[in-house]
């Protein structure tokens, strides 16, 4: 066991949580991420394998599956981002790669991103000020790729009043600043 101490994307030892009016913006550092892309001609096999692993059919374009231990989000043709609790699945990519073998290309993505969970009744109004997605047209479980203040992000509506934003880790501070400013605007 190593004794190196991790930092969250915002640079803290623990997750940053901020409440602005009725809105809460939580940093989610305990998230293991792995991208999986089916190899050419192995798409069906990959889907089959991952259905067993994830416990649900992998979502199609614009969708995420939120149930189970390993939620999945569609991020490109035959490509998904899988996530899981970091403490239990730190090497999620190894688990997935072990399952798919040479049927898919799996890459660790845990530390490429910063994840924020936004909740509160003003979430849609806040989202309107952040990115061009049609938040009112998104059902729970809809996910898409968009930009927030020039930063490429994944946006997933995880509940009626809940939104998950996954953005580039090195810009975590800028992204967080944008979220907090928008929260103040609508709170």
């Amino acid at each position, binding site marked *: 066991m190593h004794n190196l101490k991790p930092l969250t994307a915002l640079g803290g030892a623990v997750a940053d949580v901020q409440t602005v009016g009725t809105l809460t913006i939580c940093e989610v*550092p305990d998230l293991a991420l792995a991208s999986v892309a089916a190899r050419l001609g192995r798409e069906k096999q990959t889907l089959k394998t991952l259905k067993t692993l994830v416990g649900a059919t992998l979502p199609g374009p614009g969708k995420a599956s939120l149930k189970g231990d390993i939620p999945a989000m569609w991020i490109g043709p035959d490509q998904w981002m899988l996530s899981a609790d970091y403490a239990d699945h730190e090497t999620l990519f190894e688990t997935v790669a072990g399952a798919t073998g*040479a049927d898919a290309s799996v890459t660790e993505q845990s530390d490429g991103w910063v994840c924020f969970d936004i909740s509160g009744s003003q979430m849609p109004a806040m989202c309107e000020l952040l990115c061009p997605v049609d938040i009112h047209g998104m059902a729970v479980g809809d996910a898409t790729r968009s930009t927030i203040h020039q930063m490429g992000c994944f946006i997933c509506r995880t509940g009626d009043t809940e939104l998950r934003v996954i953005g580039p880790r090195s810009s975590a501070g800028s992204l967080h600043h944008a979220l907090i400013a928008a929260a103040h605007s609508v709170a």
Partner: protein
Amino acid sequence: MTQKNRLKGGQIDTSQTLNFSFDGKQFTGHPGDTLASALVANGVRLMGRSFKYHRPRGLLTSGSEEPNALVELRAGNRQEPNTRATTIELFDGLLAKSQNRLGSLKFDLLSINDRFSNFLAAGFYYKTFMWPAAFWEKIYEPIIRNAAGLGSLSLEDDPDVYDKGFLHCDLLIIGAGPSGVAAALTAGRAGARVILADEDFRMGGRLNSETIAVGDAHGSDWAAQTVAELATLPNVRMMARTTVIGAFDHGTYGAVERVSDHLHTPDAGKPRQILWRLYTKRTLLCAGAIERPIAFENNDRPGIMMAGAVRSFANRWAATPHERVAIFTNNDDGHRTAADLHAKGVKIAAVVDTREGAPRSNSYEVLAGAQVTDTKGRLGLTFAEVKLADGSTRRLDCGALAMSGGWNPNVHMTCHQRGRPTWNDDIAAFVPSAELPAGMSVAGAATGVFSTHAALTTGAKEAAAILRDLGIKSRAPKMPQAEDAPTNITPFWYVEGASRAWLDQQNDVTVKDVKLSHQEGFRSVEHLKRYTTLGMATDQGKTSNMGGLAVMAEIAGKTIPEVGTTIFRPPYTPVPIGTFAGRARGMDFHPTRKTPSHTFAEERGAVFVEVGNWLRAQWFPIEGETTWRESVDREVLATRNSVGVCDVTTLGKVDVQGADAADFLNKIYCNGFAKLAVGKVRYGLMLREDGIAMDDGTAARLAEDHFVVTTTTANAVGVYRHMEFVRQCLFPDMDVQLISTTEGWAQYAVAGPNSRKVLEKIVDQDISNEAFPFMACANITVCGGLRARLFRISFSGELAYEIAVPTRYGDALIREIMTAGADFDIVPYGTEALGVMRIEKGHAAGNELNGTTSALNLGMGRMVSKKKDSIGSTLSERPGMNEADALAQVGIKPTNPNDPVPAGAHLMAADGPIDAAHDQGYATSACYSPILGHSIAIGFLKDGANRKGEVMRLVSPLTGIETQVEIVSAHFIDPDGERLRA
């Protein structure tokens, strides 16, 4: 001052009083007032000075088209110039000042310009100030610039914040007058997602300004009730105080919402305004119409206003500009003003109607077939001279003159995609053509139908048609009864014989100026605009363009549609620059990317540099160091003599996997990768399609079907995009998958003769030279089990490694490395030391891969493999790219060690002329080498490979530098590479 011109009624809340100040004088008004209506109620007619002649001016209109009543609103850092008094919602404590004056508003010293108007006619500055030419820049231009312009800026930072936002809808309705409200009701009840936007703070449009009944209710009451119903519908978004400013591509619209402008100061954290981008499936333009003036001599005196505006002030704001008002009209609408004012107890001096068959009235005098020929009153109208139908003249005493030349449909938004309006003779105005922006329809007065009935029914009908088109079922609500008066108008643009008759009050353009423009050959409507400035500035000619066109048409012997209109461009009304900037200002101009060692570097006082969006440590000063060079020299010497560590996370990393991963790399790199062994790294050069070098980096083979490609920091995004293009578009049949892992790994270069000894303390595996030789790579663990990657590559030319761990452990790792290296006096080094060491080693970087250099120039000509096809390889063989005397990379050192060798300087022969024709090459990168003790450079020299030892001159005629230099190998340090293999 009491509100002496306040009438009874109106849509203002007289139970509350608001205090405000104009030019230092205190006034009162009520909620629901605009600054304009409150000033009218207080009997203020003089509100500003004109642009050029500094003539006294008052309100012309009551809406956003206002050309005259521009004020500096608020004070200090919130002072905003050129704000239209007609659109400022009154709030308690409002401060406003008149502008464009020297001295007081009543005694403006620059009104002298009016006396010299003969010298200041249109285009005067093209003709005067021509001599002496040298006077222009230093004398004439500063004087003109000082006198020109309207309001002044505070020159302080704007303290407010501005947001940008994005909305989506089935139907955007622009304008909440009768047609817009009827359309919103139709679409809203059908369940469509509707946005109803209006620039006004009170929805209802002209219904709030008229005394017209809708059904059994007063028009404004019907509007209020309908707006209240719409507000209860969750699918309808009501956006008052929101101006749609432009129609852009594919059904997107821009809109500015004035969130806090009606407040003294925005609430904490709240934006002042929001710039919305509206994504619409369909749009219904219900923008109404704008009344146009008539040009007559001295038609610009304070008190002379549009008839519809006077009606608005009386009916909506319960205020009259004067107790005695005359009306000048060419259509029936002008008579409404007379009737409404009369009903409110205002004395009507007379209605002057240009038409012989003008309607008669029992309540006030109507002068049919008459014209207003002149007016008097220095700071406000006192009387109008009228030429009667029989040719006699008569003086009409009045303090206000309400004029109506007819109404122009508001076609602006229909023309933002280059459409041109068409002429409609029935109403003597332009109407929208069939060529509309995609997805747009038009209803109500904007189409040229001016009755309330027509507005309501066309609004509902167009909305129903849109719903059908969108596949949304609807039942058109039955519209209530309303007046359906025809438009009776006889076109009348200007009074014969008038010369100082103002067409464009904002730019002081007269009938005479248009005639002059024609006389001097500026006859095209676009030339007319530029020559006279007709239709420019904040109002963009909303009240003036038609008059100008009509005069030009008459002089040119053309019809108005033959003259045509100028181009309509967004924004529809002025937008503060801050609104366009939004949150992207100062440090938030772009996102900031921080490296995993950022906190570590900050703790050591690192000086940062922006590299793209990244902040990288440039150097780490320690106590006693006074210049950057001292720090950099120390970091270089410490690294070369023992060991240093540098954060190289910013270099792009692309995970390349798939059965064809090696073949794919063979395509994107000009050198071969297929035979690279697992566990090995290779330097690679990417060419553009045209054979010019694009980027360089390394590819590490972690498995048969798994590579990690690194790119330069600057090109990380571009190279990844290029790779995706190649994968998806050029070779879709290859089995290869790409994903960026740049940010997922914290990566450090550990360089120097003691680097292995430091890493041996951290890495859990054997990294001896035998077990882990130069160009090896492996998945390893560090510090007792953390997964990591190790690459034995060197940018500095020293024995060096790059070690990577998951980013969350990046901070911990660099601290571990520093601890492990303490015995070896390890130093952190920044990008400057990195740069010095790579120049000493002769490694190419951005300065060399500058978009003009080929592999041959870079000394890597033989790397372009002929055994395979790769992107750029064919075109790299073009004639000219492979000349014998082509530029080749060389090292440059001064013959006198104290001389500088600046980058960018050019190489010339040791003697002979210094000019472009004798140019031999240029220095690309230069630095002081602390190891060598003198400056060095690398650069490109014609036939450079064969000229080592030659003495030349390195010159920069621009900065006066001429240094004698010797051409040497670009590898100043360890040319045989013994150190990095040690």
